[in-house]
């Protein structure tokens, strides 16, 4: 459950709606009823406003903190740190990006093995986004030229299939043609 919430774009969309929809409902209710409806001043005492104010701010803080704390386990930063600390052997996949293609050392990958992707750009800003065969973005990396170390993270694939790599940092007139593939195979095959 939490995984499809934090690890998909639609989960993000859901979170956005979770904040937006109740807000809009209350906002339109207040604005419409206090202008088109009865616009006379409210007789509610000041103390009830203060109570509402506290409750609202409390609610916002609780939701914000909860959503962000629960997200920690799903951050690629966390997965990467855990994999590095575990001492487990990582499969290295390095790549370079140059307008408008990639050069990837190893494009055949096994399911279930932690892979460390490390990439550099040789000219301008590029991205390295891995798309699941079903079309969803697994992760994207930003490659900035001129840095000493590569951009890198550790990812473990769950499903076999052909994954598309796309550049998500605008890099000029053929940006949309900057594409490659990774083939993920079942363990041991």
């Amino acid at each position: 459950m939490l995984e499809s919430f934090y690890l998909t774009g639609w989960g993000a969309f859901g979170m956005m709606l979770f904040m937006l929809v109740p807000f809009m409902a209350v906002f339109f209710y207040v604005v419409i009823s206090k202008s088109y409806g009865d616009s006379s001043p409210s007789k509610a005492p000041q103390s009830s406003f203060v109570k509402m104010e506290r409750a609202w701010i409390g609610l916002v803080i609780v939701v914000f903190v909860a959503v962000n704390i629960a997200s920690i386990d799903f951050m690629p930063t966390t997965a990467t740190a855990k994999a590095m600390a575990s001492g487990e052997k990582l499969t290295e996949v390095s790549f370079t990006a140059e307008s408008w293609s990639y050069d990837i050392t190893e494009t055949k990958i096994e399911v279930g093995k932690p892979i460390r992707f490390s990439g550099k750009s040789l000219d301008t800003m590029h991205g390295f986004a891995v798309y699941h065969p079903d079309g969803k973005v697994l992760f994207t990396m930003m490659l900035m030229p001129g840095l000493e170390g590569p951009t890198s993270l550790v990812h473990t694939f769950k499903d076999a299939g052909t994954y598309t790599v796309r550049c998500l940092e605008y890099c000029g007139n053929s940006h949309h043609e900057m594409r490659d593939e990774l083939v993920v195979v079942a363990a041991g095959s």
Partner: protein
Amino acid sequence: MLAATKILQRLPFFNRMFGVDAEDGLQEINSWPALMIASSFIWLAVAGLLGVAMPLIQRFDLGSELFYMALTAHGAALAFPFSFQLMAGISLHRAGGCVGKPITGVLPALIFICMNLGAALLTVAILLGFSVSLVVMYPLPVVGVANGQWSFNTLVLGFTGIALVLTMMIYLYPVQLLKMMFFGKKREDLILSERTLDDPGMLGMVIAALVLIVMGTPLMIIASYVLVALYGIIPLDVVAWATKPVVFQFAFFTFAHNLMEAMALMVISGIYATLPLYLADGTRELYSKRLANAALWILLITSFSSFFHHFITLLPNLPASLAYHGNIMSWGTGIGAALSIFTILATIWKHGLRKEPGIMIALMGFVIYVMDGASALVTSNVAWSFQLHGTMWQSGHTMTVLIAMSMMWIGVLYHHYPVLTGRTLSAKQGNWFMVLFTAGALGAGLVMLAGGAAGMPRRFADWAQGGWAVYGDLILVTGLLMAVGLIILAANFMKSRKLDEVPGSASAPEAAE
């Protein structure tokens, strides 16, 4: 007669919309702002068409270069000479009338020239192929010369334009605002509705001006070095430090992010100042000044370092700790927004609201602004950033925040309009604009966010590649709604009627102080 008044008089159509009355004694606060507002709408007219053109270019396969050209011109024109210039015009007008200082002399003229000439030069460069997007994606401008996408001269032209625009945003406009707030003699005849810094509406303007200067200066230094080197005045290797992508990118995004926050502070303070004038019981006060000011301060403090959220996916070149910091600070700005929401709703609940189109438009802009805020918080979370960064979600966010702020300003403009031009607008057309533009903007925003959720890349000339064409079509439909709304708005400005010709409106200027 002021130069601005003369220029306005020569503008076809737009003089009908924003021409000022040279005889009403208020030219000194009206003319330059009116000219800036008029020019901002000229940019909107052209760049809005380019927005509609983008989905059409993809639908009819008119070529990727044309798409990237339209994208760059659309984004750059709407962010700077439209949104920023609209804000500059209205906020200067507001400041003038609140503190009783004229907007005359060299500085307003320079503000106008730098913004419009700079944007025009950049546009010419874009038409010559300089398709680098509105954030320039440094070092793309230089790499593009190396791999033959555009010429060196085009690059120099484009950067010259950008430098002029930045000079206006980072120094000229904030200095003009601060000058009016703190220096010069107050002129009683120019005071329309006196306010002091004690007022949240004024405080926000001052903070915003300071943010622009402070956060913009590093970028200004770097950009100046690069420009001087491009002109060949100093050798390129002397500026090697400034041309390092990481230096440029970080300076750029500390500014770009805080630019957005400064514009938000400015417009929220505009709402804080305007809303009380439309309360049904005539109270003229916000629910709580304390809460309103707290929102501004929280926004200010959290915004400084939330820009790290632009670089979360650079791991480990952006250390994870800074990514978390950006994440937390961004959600902190959300707390500020929550306070603004409460202040506005409690004010309306307590005192009731007059249903005038101006304030309604501004409030609808605020709704769009909250939608944008929600989308911004989500994509600042480290887990979600790795899936959304570089997708259409981000374009949805950029475009929505600018639309929201512009719409709030249009609402405030509705309020200023009678003083600015001596004419009055139709309420019916105002309402139609409000409905259509809100529907279009919310729709376009949601469609772009949904496209991003589905993995649709931003700034991408081939939406069909991953089956995202349908989002493009929906952007076209919702964009057309916005366009119709804007046409109605333009018609409303065109057909505005002289105050003294409208029965019962003799008191309008006072009501609109």
